[in-house]
């Protein structure tokens, strides 16, 4: 895979924090309690360079979806900055925000809920084009046909409602809808997690083709490591709201430095038909984000944990110009 590792930064995330307030009831109000806050994203910095795909991997609740949603501004960050092509997305007014939407688009996980069940494929796409005046009214029909062929859908599917489409077809419609705005940056949130393997492979191929043809920059969010590796130039691993390791795909998967990444990589079932006789590397479960452990947040499950890990947050260690890990004892 060609690796556009240098080149200018397209998206820069700087010390981003996203908190959710647990709802306050009347009793809490009466007692003057403040909101309990969950830090879903806890100080994430990440750079995505032009034409690069960065894979974001982690288990459920690690904050990867929230991070993706913060980029397209459907969740509001608490602090930090996200800038695209040098422009801070978090300080935009509503007009600029609308213009920004054209450049950053999102593809959602669940092809069954990401399309409006009441709208045909054609209406879904035409609405985007008309609303944003991407094409003069007369050209909308042609552009819809173009978009359908771009994502490999037969033109006769245009009149169908989502219900009459298969999962793979729906995901293609979701992709066409995102591409209708001709974005340069695409956030893909688990785009193939809901699909069967054979269909998943079709969509992954399509995504790689489109990326090359349209010169897209991507943040590819997934929990499945093989999919991430297949799609990404660089990979960021998230755990409990922080990026704990980032590097090229080869660095992260072949020479993981953070014990969590090492455990993740070893936990993937292998295709080699040999009965497993290995012990699970990572014991226990992810702690609640309401109660993040002090020191290194991974120490409760870490096989290497020492006393220092329980007390002091680990430094961000550079292992190579492109490879960093947040750990007191990085390395094999």
């Amino acid at each position, binding site marked *: 895979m060609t690796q556009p590792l240098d080149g200018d930064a397209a998206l820069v995330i700087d010390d981003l924090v996203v908190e959710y307030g647990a709802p306050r009831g009347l009793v809490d109000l009466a007692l003057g309690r403040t909101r309990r806050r969950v830090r879903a994203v806890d100080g994430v910095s990440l750079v995505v360079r032009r034409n690069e795909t960065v894979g974001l991997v982690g288990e459920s609740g690690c904050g990867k979806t929230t991070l993706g949603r913060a980029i397209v501004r459907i969740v509001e960050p608490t602090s930090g900055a996200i800038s695209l092509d040098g422009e801070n997305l978090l300080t935009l007014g509503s007009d600029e925000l609308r213009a920004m*939407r054209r450049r950053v*688009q*999102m593809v959602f996980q669940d092809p069954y809920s990401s*399309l*409006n069940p009441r709208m045909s494929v054609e209406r879904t796409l035409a609405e985007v084009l008309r*609303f944003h005046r991407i094409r003069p009214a007369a050209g909308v029909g042609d552009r819809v046909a173009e978009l359908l062929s771009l994502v490999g859908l037969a033109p006769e599917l245009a009149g169908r409602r989502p219900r009459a489409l298969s999962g793979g077809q729906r995901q293609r419609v979701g992709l066409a809808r995102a591409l209708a705005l001709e974005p340069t940056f695409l956030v893909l949130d688990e785009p193939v997690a809901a699909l069967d393997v054979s269909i998943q492979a079709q969509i992954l191929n399509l995504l790689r083709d489109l990326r090359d043809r349209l010169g897209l920059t991507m943040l590819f969010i997934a929990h499945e490591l093989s999919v991430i590796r297949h799609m990404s130039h660089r990979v960021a691993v998230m755990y409990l709201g922080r990026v704990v390791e980032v590097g090229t795909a080869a660095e992260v998967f072949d020479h993981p430095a953070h014990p969590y990444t090492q455990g993740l990589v070893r936990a993937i079932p292998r295709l080699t038909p040999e009965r497993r006789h290995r012990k699970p590397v990572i014991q226990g479960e992810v702690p609640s984000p309401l109660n993040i452990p002090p020191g290194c947040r991974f120490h409760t499950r870490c096989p290497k944990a020492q006393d220092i890990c329980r007390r002091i947050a680990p430094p961000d260690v550079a292992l190579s110009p492109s490879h960093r890990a947040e750990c007191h004892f990085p390395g094999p």
Partner: protein
Amino acid sequence: MTAIAIRDELARWPASLKIGATFFLLIVVTGLFAPWLTPYDPYTQDLAGFLQPPSWRHPFGTDHVGRDVLTRVLHGIRIDLQIGFITTYVPMTYGLLLGALSGYLGGWFDTLMMRLLDVAVAFPFLVLIIVIIAILGPGVHTIYIAVFLLAWTMYARLARAEMLVERGKDYVLAARTLGYPTSRVVFRHAMPNVINSSIVFSMADFVLNILLVSSLSFLGLGVPPPLPEWGAMVAEGRDFIFDAWWISTLPGLAIVVTGASLSLIGDGLAHRLGQRQRSFL
């Protein structure tokens, strides 16, 4: 819609919907043609022919001032359906809007709405209506005002609950990432997926509203005589119930048949729209 599309749609209707819709349509048509279906006038009294039992000349008999009960029941369709329709669908419209907005926006607007709903629900509906009527004086318009003040709360509740589910769905998030303004996201995208349960409920509500107006008229707080409103007619016949059962019973039957047909439509719609079966009645 082509003829084929209509035929396909009809084929998917459950039997209850077909039966209910047929009956309801019959009732509406009968109401429309009421003046031409019987030779009598609903108001003209015939003191010589009062309290006549059902016969060929008067299939539903005559009341205590000699008016033909059938004629009055048929004219009553116009009054009762009109009142039922207005008291159901006017509050439904703004109830849906407010509820959907409340569920989607959350925050202080939602808090305010929820408190309003709590207050409205905390009082017994009928008592509150009677209080309002007592203040404003009886009459159809007062009933409208009273119902408009209260009846939207149920729709707002339903729409809010459904919206809380819909607003987290990916298609709504997608509409937001596409840069659509809030009004478009709520009303064009989410709304059509929110209204099903309200439509189903409105059928039950329609029946309840007809019964409400009838009850109010029965109590003398609703439609003033001599208008041929079914509840008022039941009330008028109350004094003669042992001598002339038909004066009260047959208008009462009209209420039952209308109510039953609407309930069947509601059940059928629930089925057709894929809603969980709900029985409100």
